[in-house]
């Protein structure tokens, strides 16, 4: 039995912006990550991923923070556990708050990830934080124009069929849109990661 037990999570609260997303909110501190994730040198198809985070009344949440973690265009993660290495200059990590957009959207400008393994569909790994969430929640964003890959994806296949649509962003030009529903009939699937 381990004497080292997990430190409990606590809410990010209402005032994370100047600490975690300072540049986006115009506070005088640098940020380790932003919604703009891919510089010009990064290989891959440029996409925008945007959406709102909605509460149990269907109201857009203006103080949520979204983080995404993704593979590069060839499906490689920029991390030592992925021996394939990754795209120069692409960390694969983005972070943005919903408080600077007039419609309370999160907006990521990134590249479309490749599939990380055979049989997997391309996806973004997502963490949602906000005031009123004592423990952060994990979800994923898949892409509507990857129907065949999505049908074969083992994670998506393990989700009840009538809830899979909560994880699939609709493509419109180069923009993918998906709202995250914290509650309600269309509650987003959150994973026990």
């Amino acid at each position: 039995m381990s004497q080292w037990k997990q430190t409990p999570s606590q809410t990010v609260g209402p005032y994370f912006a100047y600490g975690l997303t300072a540049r986006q909110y115009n506070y005088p501190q640098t940020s380790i990550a932003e919604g703009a994730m891919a510089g010009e040198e990064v290989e891959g198809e440029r996409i925008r991923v945007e959406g709102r985070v909605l509460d149990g009344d269907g109201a857009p949440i203006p103080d949520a923070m979204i983080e995404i973690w993704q593979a590069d265009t060839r499906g490689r993660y920029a991390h030592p556990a992925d021996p394939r290495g990754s795209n120069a200059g692409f960390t694969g990590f983005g972070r943005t708050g919903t408080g600077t957009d007039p419609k309370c959207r999160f907006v990521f400008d990134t590249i479309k990830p490749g599939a990380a393994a055979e049989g997997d569909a391309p996806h973004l790994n997502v963490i949602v934080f906000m005031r009123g969430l004592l423990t952060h929640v994990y979800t994923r964003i898949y892409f509507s124009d990857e129907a065949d890959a999505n049908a074969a994806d083992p994670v998506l296949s393990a989700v009840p069929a009538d809830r899979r649509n909560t994880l699939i962003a609709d493509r419109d030009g180069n923009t993918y849109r998906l709202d995250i529903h914290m509650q309600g009939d269309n509650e987003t699937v959150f994973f026990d990661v």
Partner: protein
Amino acid sequence: MADGNSITPRDWAAHPPLIHPDYKSTVKRGPTKPLVPIRHSLSELTGPVYGHESLAPLDNDLTKNGAKNGEALGERIVVTGRVLDELGRPQPNALIEIWQANAAGRYVHENDRHDAPLDPNFFGGGRAVTDAEGRYRFYTIKPGAYPWPNHANAWRPNHIHLSLFGPAFASRLVTQMYFPGDPLLALDPIFLGTPEGARNRLVSDFSLDVTEEGFALGYVFDIVLRGPRETPMEAGR
């Protein structure tokens, strides 16, 4: 069977539930349906990598990094500790981001309307990266308590917000560090949302050893993250 590709599960005996009605904002924001199990793949077992190159020289010194024309006001403190996994192994190169109220209990955040003064020489945000022994160190000002609208006469205990990246996306942690002996802890629905047996892990220890004579009181706060499971191979070493 050896399984080097997994990480310990989230310990729900440690973490607060997604809906905790005493903390009112959880009622409309916490998911209501059961979390869907997921088999860990590279997506969960990798995560963003930050190291010492991510830091500027004053990032871990909040007493100085917001100074404009003088000293930050309040009680100077040192906050230090180790970041470990559940086997007690130090986690080097772990990025810790912190943010907090000033000594008067006011955040620089533009939405904070608490009628307490801002300190022109205190910003309240900082960063550190753990060393080879998993150790981090911040210099800051003890944050003040402040009122919030959750219920009548509600006050948050003194606390510092911390955000950590461990070895993987699955080990991500955002938490709050509290101070020993704070009478507001017993009244705070955010602190009390934590399962009882795990609450004391959120309270730092005062340490005379860490206290710097004539300068700053010392507090120790160790943080335990989810980590890779011990594999049979490692256990035999």
